[in-house]
């Protein structure tokens, strides 16, 4: 026996710190309780069998936290070290410790204790400054190493720990002991729900890059009752069992996910070992129609209801109303999932209505995205100021005195979509100092004046986080008295505003001065985009505000307005050019608007039309957001709410690069500037769709922009990749976004502090702000998802009413943008629909192309190449290349339980000619005019930039940037449908 001493620092009963020295005796022979022992340990009592694959040694944290799991009798060969036992005793208390002791005593359990701290060679003294957890992990590791050596390497020893650092540190040591810990979130594949799921590991700082792609979980058995969204622990299968993702198009596949690997190279495959955290929410299910006669008795029946979401397994529900609920959509909750059962058990909560009805479907979308938008309560409405005909709302004189009055001095106007009710941004521009200076103003509705922090309305707005826009309706974040009236900066009425005003040099457009503050405005004109564009183009347009005036007065006012608009456009072009040089991206999303008539019937699906004035307004808003972000970040370096757009992962670009290469273009994705430039150059002069598709692919590869609190990220993480701005936030739409309200409050506090006054109320701390940001991010994602699904719903409704065989509008021109094993993915620009087209159907028949391009099903085979796919049948071989135009027929595939989906079927491998030859071209003329203007601006700026200092390339390589090719490309680029709103999802060109 060897005596050592351990010195402990204990607290005495009087709370003083005491240094205590305790003896510690080590011995060479400590029984190992393994039947494999060669050294002749005195193993009496329980002994671990020798025929196991490995022994498991949990560390202190794991033994404490997962004792319930370790208690399973199925787990054999567990060695509890003395260190972890004591760890359990101290961190978990006596009860847990007792459980552990009983476990060790239980003869049915294959687990043994090991007094590692009394073993001479496995004991490691605690080092100075070492934390207790670290020391415990080290002790357990050294015990594991001892075991391995003690058993002469005959048994593998696995140590389990949650300490990622330990995993990294010890797994690299070559001692025959495996140190593991893997956990992540289950992400069930949307398309092959029954066979595939992937786990994205989060925060796994493993050097092992194999796992960065996630872990594949194949089959329902390996998934082990985990449901989509659960946090699970996975075990990696041996490398020989790794599989690749299935790359064929499965029936019912809606749309391919970004980042899906095109090659089916084997990836880490595993199976779910346990579920850390259930993430069950309310699910919408449909009761299946009954087969057979109704039963005589009205007893409870157990019904397997089918969830709307493909990723969720069927849920077993026992109900008495099974007959009444047939074909109804019902909200259910999952209660439990027995290990012996194939399906989880649940109970119904609420009936939504009959499947297939619009109202039901919309409710379904909302619930599936966890959006709760009850009508505003009376208590909330009571907080609102009143504005009725009898009691009109008036400004508070105290507020009037406090605010800067812009009503007389400035020409303020708003530009919004037609019929917009919630006008939250207005603009003003004027010349100062005899034309030497320009004053640009952005005036935002002062929502925070009405919504005080912590009020009921504020809480409700916070929980909604955003206004939800669905295809046919919207759910406001604020009560309509605010959103459509008192906060809305309508024409001709006095309103409170938050203003940002820049003083610009009229020539160089350099910002001289910025002013932030609260103001009073009266918007003179409430324009809509089309009208503003018409005014800019010098076309005849009727401005409603001027309708009643005499012609002379009207002309002068009109001239004034037009001049302001022109000035604004000029500034916006400059700003845009500036950002473009920084590498701002112009991305592309697909979006269509359903035009509804009075009875809510869909008359047409129209892609949104971009106008230059859209961009002008957006640019001003981006500018305002940027400056506000700078202001609040400077004032509150640790607790400002900003928005960042992280650079996308290069792997996600693989599909884009592949497709582009197939089309003969090169895409450089290294930086946003390089990407923007290479996207600009990847243009097929024959087909504007190519560029548009590449942009769509680039957009899907992007990561999402997110809100965050500045205290949590380092300064270089603030960068907004899409907009190429170092700091960015949301400030300009407080009526429909809660983040803007937070920013408004921060800005107000910053202004107060500038005046030297303490802002009074304490601001949200970094942590609270981060929580808020997280919440808003989640809600935004849900809102986008809901919007997307509702658009799809309306697409389906549109085509549902048409007979695919006879109606011409069901046949459309489509472009191939990706190739799969048994089909192609196409994009239909006319309707903004993306979808798969199968070249081989379930019977194994393939599409054969007849002599004049018509297609029919015949038996044959399909071969896939990197840039084309070809089918061989008795009629010969036909090939579909990337970026080919083909004709497809759109039909709706109705399902009872899920959302309807569109099915595309190839009718001809030639472009559809009858469809109005490429819509964009028809409206390209007016765009060209603007584009030329913009290019001139850009070129001028380029020159201006060159004058003070020659750009780096020029100095080094004597390269000049001739605008010729660039402008040509720009021109063609503009022909493609620019989609401002769509871009907003990722790069938010709108504000």
């Amino acid at each position, binding site marked *: 026996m060897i005596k050592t*001493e351990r010195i402990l620092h*204990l607290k005495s009963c009087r709370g003083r710190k005491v240094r205590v020295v305790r003896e510690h005796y080590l011995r060479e022979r400590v029984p190992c309780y393994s039947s494999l022992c060669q050294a002749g340990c005195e193993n009496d009592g329980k002994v671990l069998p020798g025929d196991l694959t490995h022994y498991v040694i949990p560390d202190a944290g794991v033994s404490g936290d997962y004792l319930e799991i370790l208690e399973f009798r199925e787990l054999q060969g567990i060695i509890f070290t003395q260190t972890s036992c004591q760890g359990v005793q101290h961190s978990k208390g006596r009860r847990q410790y007792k459980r552990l002791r009983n476990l060790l005593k239980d003869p049915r359990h294959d687990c043994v204790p090991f007094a590692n701290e009394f073993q001479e060679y496995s004991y490691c003294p605690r080092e100075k400054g070492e934390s207790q957890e670290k020391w415990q992990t080290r002790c357990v590791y050294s015990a594991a190493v001892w075991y391995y050596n003690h058993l002469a390497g005959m048994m593998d020893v696995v140590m389990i720990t949650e300490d990622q650092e330990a995993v990294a540190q010890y797994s690299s040591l070559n001692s025959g002991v495996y140190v593991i810990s893997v956990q992540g979130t289950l992400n069930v594949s949307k398309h092959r729900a029954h066979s595939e799921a992937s786990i994205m590991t989060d925060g796994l700082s493993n050097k092992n890059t194999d796992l960065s792609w996630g872990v594949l979980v194949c089959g329902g058995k390996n998934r082990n009752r985990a449901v989509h969204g659960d946090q699970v622990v996975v075990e990696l299968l041996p490398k020989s069992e790794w599989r690749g993702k299935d790359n064929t198009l499965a029936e019912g596949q809606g749309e391919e996910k970004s980042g899906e690997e095109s090659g089916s190279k084997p990836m880490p495959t595993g199976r779910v070992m346990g579920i850390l955290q259930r993430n069950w929410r309310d699910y919408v299910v449909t009761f299946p129609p009954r087969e057979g006669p109704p039963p005589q008795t009205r007893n409870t029946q157990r019904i397997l209801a089918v969830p709307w979401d493909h990723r969720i397994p069927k849920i077993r529900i026992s109900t008495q109303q099974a007959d009444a609920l047939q074909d109804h959509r019902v909200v259910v909750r999952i209660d439990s999932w027995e290990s012996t059962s194939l399906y989880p058990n649940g109970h119904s909560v609420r009936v939504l209505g009959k499947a297939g009805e619009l109202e039901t479907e919309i409710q379904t979308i909302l619930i599936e995205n966890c959006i709760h938008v009850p009508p505003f309560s009376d208590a909330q409405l009571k907080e609102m100021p009143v504005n009725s005909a009898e009691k009109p709302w008036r400004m508070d004189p105290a507020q009037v005195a406090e605010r800067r009055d812009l009503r007389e001095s400035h020409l303020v106007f708003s530009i919004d979509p037609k019929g917009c009710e919630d006008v939250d941004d207005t603009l003003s521009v004027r010349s100062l100092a005899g034309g030497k200076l320009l004053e640009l103003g952005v005036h935002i509705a002062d929502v925070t004046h009405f919504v005080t922090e912590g009020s009921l309305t504020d809480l409700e707005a916070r929980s909604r986080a955003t206004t939800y826009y669905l295809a046919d309706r919207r759910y406001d974040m604020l009560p309509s008295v605010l959103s459509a009236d008192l906060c809305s900066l309508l024409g001709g009425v006095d309103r409170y505003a938050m203003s940002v005003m820049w003083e610009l040099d009229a020539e160089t457009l350099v910002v001289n001065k910025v002013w932030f503050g609260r103001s009073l405005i009266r918007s003179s004109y409430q324009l809509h985009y089309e009208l503003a564009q018409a005014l800019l183009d010098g076309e005849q347009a009727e401005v409603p505000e001027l309708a009643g005036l005499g012609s002379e007065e009207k002309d002068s006012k009109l001239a004034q307005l037009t001049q302001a608009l022109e000035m604004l456009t000029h500034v916006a072009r400059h700003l845009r050019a500036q950002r473009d040089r920084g590498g701002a991206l112009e991305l592309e999303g697909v979006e269509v608007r359903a035009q509804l008539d009075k009875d809510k019937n869909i008359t047409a699906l129209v892609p949104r039309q971009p106008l230059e004035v859209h961009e002008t307004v957006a640019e001003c808003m981006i500018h305002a957001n940027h400056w506000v972000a700078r202001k609040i970040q400077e004032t509150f370096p640790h607790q400002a709410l900003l928005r960042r757009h992280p650079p996308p992962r290069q792997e996600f670009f693989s599909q884009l690069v592949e497709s582009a290469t197939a089309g003969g273009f090169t895409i450089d994705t290294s930086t946003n500037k390089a990407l923007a430039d290479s996207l600009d150059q990847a243009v097929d002069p024959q087909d504007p769709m190519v560029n548009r598709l590449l942009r769509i692919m680039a957009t899907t590869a992007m990561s999402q922009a997110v809100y965050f609190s500045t205290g949590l990220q380092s300064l270089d993480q603030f960068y907004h990749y899409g907009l190429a701005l170092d700091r960015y936030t949301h400030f300009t739409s407080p009526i429909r976004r809660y983040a803007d309200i937070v920013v408004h409050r921060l800005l107000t506090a910053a202004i107060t502090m500038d005046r030297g006054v303490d802002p009074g109320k304490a601001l949200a701390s970094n942590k609270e702000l981060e929580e808020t940001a997280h919440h808003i991010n989640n809600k935004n994602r849900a809102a986008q998802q809901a919007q997307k699904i509702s658009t799809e719903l309306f697409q389906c409704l549109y085509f549902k009413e048409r007979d695919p065989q006879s109606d011409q509008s069901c046949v459309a021109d489509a472009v191939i943008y990706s190739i799969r094993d048994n089909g192609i993915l196409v994009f239909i620009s006319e309707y903004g629909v993306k979808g798969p087209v199968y070249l081989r159907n379930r019977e194994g028949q393939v599409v054969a192309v007849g002599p004049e391009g018509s297609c029919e099903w015949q038996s044959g085979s399909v071969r896939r190449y990197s840039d084309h796919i070809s089918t061989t049948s008795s009629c010969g071989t036909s090939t579909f290349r990337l970026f080919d135009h083909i004709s497809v027929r759109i039909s709706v595939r109705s399902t009872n339980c899920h959302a309807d989906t569109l099915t595309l079927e190839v009718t001809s491998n030639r472009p559809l000619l009858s469809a109005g030859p490429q819509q964009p071209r028809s409206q390209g003329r007016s765009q060209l005019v603007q584009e030329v203007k913009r290019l001139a601006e850009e070129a001028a700026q380029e020159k201006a930039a060159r004058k003070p200092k020659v750009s780096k390339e020029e100095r080094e390589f004597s390269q000049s940037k001739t605008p010729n090719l660039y402008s040509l490309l720009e021109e063609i680029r503009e022909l493609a449908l620019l989609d401002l709103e769509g871009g907003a999802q990722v790069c938010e060109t709108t504000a």
Partner: protein
Amino acid sequence: MGNVVQRQTRGALRFQLFRKMAGLELLSDQGYRLDGRKATELRKFQARMGVFAQADGSAYLEQGNTKALAVVYGPHEVRGSRSRIRHDQAVINCQYSMATFSTAERKRRPHGDRKSTEMSLHLKQTFEAAVMTQLYPRSQIDIYVKILQSDGGNYSVCVNAATLAVIDAGIPMRDYVCACTVGFVDETPLADLCYAEEGGGVSSLALALLPRGGQIALLQMDARLHQDHLEALIEAAMTACKGVSKVLDQVVRQHLQEASVPSAE
């Protein structure tokens, strides 16, 4: 034995817990005690005799972390009041004290407090039974014992140290006096308790034994114990004391060897 490694553990541990005796497990299921000993194992002994030349006999003894210094003067004439003189035997005068730095918390320990007086008395009784006092009538033997570091079993360490010192002084004794503290936990007697065990609510028993004859010089116990267990406990204590005597014998023999070698030269 040997190879002493010092080990530091920082971080406040749970003194209160072990004070309350809620968590601390004195004897684990595998039969280990807190410090890694088995139930019957003694702590590590380290001893030196003749540490002071000035005194007639002296010894330093470490038993685990309990360290004691014993010094013997005499036999000499009785000092002080002459009434104490015994005509047939020597008077044994014991004085026990603890250094201020001997415990975890520094504490002034004045002479003559109740605890040390009691301890002195116990020591005196022990040695009156062991030393052949009748050989030195009308004289006095002084035994001073000081605890330098206290970690449980103070009495037994003092007795053992004093034995060595008395031997060093050349005073004849009937036998070694060996003492040991034993405790009773989970139906098992634990030999040679350390401080944590003593404080842990164990019913402990101190026994001083003259091992060769098996005579008990002193038995002291002030805790509750079921009568049925007493026999086993005393048995365990006697075994432990016999173990101690072996160690002490070894120490004395080694000392003699060392002492005789230079004189032979």
